[in-house]
Structures are given as C-alpha cells and as structure tokens.
C-alpha cells in the first residue's frame, strides 16, 4: 500500500467509533474509513460502488486500535475482487477480544500503575513537575504501542491478507499480555504497600486487612463506585453509633 493511502486510512481510523449505533455498531464508521479507497483508489462507481458499499453496511465491531488490520485486509480483498465479509467478520471479533484485553484491561491500567509509581518515587518534586510526569508517562506508555499497532496494522493486513490470522497467532500475544499482567500486578501491589507505608508509618496490618476485605467485595462484582456508596453508609452508621 502506498504511503498516501496508508496515511488516509490511519487518520480516518481515529473516527471509526464516531458513528457508533445500536444496530450495526461501527459499520458506518468502517464504511467512512473505506469509502475513499473504494471511490478514489479502486475508482468504483455505479452498481459496483453500490454493491461494495452495501457489503460494508453489515454489523461490524472491533477494538479501535486493532481496526487498522481489518481495514488493511479489507482493502486488499476489495482490490483483488474477493469477498471480504467472512474474513472481516472473523478478524473483527478475534481482534476485538485481543484489543480489549491488551489495551483496555492491561495497558490502560498498567499506564496508570506505572505513572503513579513514578509519581510516588518523585513525591518530593513540585506539583507542576509531578502533573507533567504523571501525564506524559501515562500517555507515552499507552500511545506508543497503540499508535504503532494502528499504523503498522494497515500495511500488515494489506500485505498478509488471510495469512494475517497465522501471523497473529505466531506473534505470541497471549504470552506478552500475561507478562504485562504479572508486571502490572507486582507494580500495583508495591504501590498499595508503599501508600500504606507512607500513610500508616509501617503499620501494614490494618490497610492490608482493609484491602483484602475490599477484594472479597470485588469478587462479588462490586464496582468501586458501589463500594464508595456502601462506605458512606457504613461510616454514617458508625458515626451514629459513636464509633468515631
């Protein structure tokens, strides 16, 4: 794929979820990204353009960062006059699962955990420096891999076409995600223990008991907001009982 078209698809992919709707989810956004390719590159018009556009109005949903790969494969299929529906369907759902786990469940919290740890290490710095450190470290940690995958995914999908499924499985996503999860787990435990040490001056027993109790609530799908609401009620009852 030439650079001009890759840049166009890359920039348009940032607006993929803009047209999100309940019926087809990201289908309109996908057609928005692909429409330029169909009309300008493939020079489709009339019945062929109508047919190609209608093909891409079917349900589509994936993780926005991984959308580059699906766009690349679809462009190649359209160019080679092959039906892209089946591969698009298969890729979108499997890439959505990878993207949600890698970027939503691991990289986003990992960015928060690492930037918070850096701030804890630099706690003596002036506030503007801390704010800058917090922001830049979080944004860099998330955006560097996200932009890289979004950009290179277009060319990768276009070049590999259906072979991308094999290549993705060889890339060892699961192993990398598991390593990142373990690292995040260790960093977040150290962060919570460090906070306990700073606020309780070495008295770990109470905070760790508290964290363990909260963990039990989390097992029963209690969100942080729900736990906060319950904490307000408990604190009011304890206050009324004269505990504080």
């Amino acid at each position: 794929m030439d650079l001009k078209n890759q840049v166009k698809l890359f920039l348009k992919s940032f607006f993929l979820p803009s047209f999100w709707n309940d019926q087809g989810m990201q289908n309109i956004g996908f057609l928005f990204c692909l429409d330029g390719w169909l009309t300008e590159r493939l020079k489709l018009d009339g019945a062929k353009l109508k047919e190609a556009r209608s093909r891409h109005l079917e349900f589509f949903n994936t993780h926005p960062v991984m959308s580059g790969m699906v766009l690349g494969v679809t462009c190649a299929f359209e160019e080679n006059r092959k039906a892209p529906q089946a591969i698009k369907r298969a890729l979108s759902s499997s890439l959505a699962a990878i993207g949600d786990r890698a970027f939503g469940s691991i990289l986003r919290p990992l960015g928060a955990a690492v930037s918070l740890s850096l701030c804890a290490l630099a706690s003596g710095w002036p506030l503007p420096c801390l704010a800058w450190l917090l922001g830049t470290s979080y944004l860099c940690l998330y955006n560097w891999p996200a932009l890289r995958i979004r950009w290179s995914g277009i060319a990768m999908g276009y070049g590999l076409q259906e072979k991308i499924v094999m290549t993705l499985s060889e890339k060892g996503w699961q192993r990398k995600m598991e390593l990142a999860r373990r690292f995040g787990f260790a960093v977040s435990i150290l962060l919570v223990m460090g906070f306990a040490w700073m606020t309780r001056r070495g008295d770990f027993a109470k905070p760790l008991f508290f964290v363990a109790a909260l963990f039990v609530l989390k097992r029963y799908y209690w969100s942080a907001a729900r736990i906060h609401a319950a904490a307000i009620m408990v604190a009011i009852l304890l206050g009324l009982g004269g505990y504080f």
Partner: protein
Amino acid sequence: MDWFLITLPGLCLLIALVDLDAMHAGQFMLARPIILGPVLGCLLGRLGDGIWMGILMELYCLETLPLGHIIPPNAAVAVGSTMMLLSAPHPLAAPLAFPAGLSLGHLFSRVEAAIRRRRNGWMRSLEQLIATGKRVPWRLWLAKSLGIHVLAVGVFLYVAAMTVNPSLDLLWQWAPSEIRLGFEKAFEWAPWVGGTSLIYVFRPK
C-alpha cells in the same frame, strides 16, 4: 458573575471537546481523569486537588470497559464535574464533590445511550443514499456526530454545575455532623478502594 458567564461555559466546552477523544475521535487517552484532572486543576488554580481527584477518579473508572453495548460511566464528565463543584463560587467539600462527580459520570452514560439510539436512524438514511446512488455527505455527518456529543456534554455539565452545586451546598450545610463525617471517612478510604481496583484488574484469571 464571571464564573457563570465565562469560566463555567469555557470549562464545559473544554471538557466536552476533550471528551471527544474518549471514543469519538482519537482515543489518545486525553480524556482519562489522570490527564484531565491535573489540566483542569491547573486551569482552576487547584493543581493539587486536580492531581488527587484525577488519580482517584482514574482508579475508580479503571475496571469498566466500553464493550459492545456497555457504556461505562463517563470518566471525563465525572472528573470535570468534580473539579467544577470544587471550584464554584460556593465550593463543595471534596468528600461530597467526589461522589457527586461519580454519580454525574454514571448519569451521563444514560445520555450517551440515548444519543446512540438516535443514531440508528442514520443507518436507514445511509441505506437510502446508497440505494439511490447519491453522494454520502461524510464530513457533514462526522461534524454532526461530534457536534451533538460536544453539545450534550457541554449542556449536561453546565446544567449540573448550575443545579447540583447550590442544592448540594445547602444540603451539606443542613446535614447533621454524623452524615458529613460519614462522607469524610468514606473519602479517606477512597485511595484504598482505588488501590484494590487496580490490584483487582491485574488479578490472575
């Protein structure tokens, strides 16, 4: 008066524009509380509060993901409204502003759901345009989609700041000391709740 006519509308517009990044345009994570909190804190002259509220709100909103039809609480609206409630002419106490902001973030997800439902009509319009072979006005549609979201967030935040702030301020003054103490204690525990959320996200599955 400057607050209601200049500062508040300006803040609402800024938050609404940044919130586009959460889903509609970009996804660079600029709308995450950990980024937006310090920025708003800096603009409002409360950098320390901005950093702290941003961190807490980030930890509280970590575990919810926008999967399919699930619309998580809007983190930008949550941290934005918290900072506005903290910096209003009659500022709310942080232990009250924090849960109020969280609730507003939850409430806004209902508005987002309504906007998405409204966009279902676009499918029919697009099908008609394709069937008749007419040009699809992509730029207009994109501007409309982004504009509706900016307008919804901006108006929601402005109305929330104008109504929630004075009413909660009055309630807080009238509330018995035990209730105020309850909110304060829960806010003291908030870092632990957030820390647990962080550990829970990375738990072995």
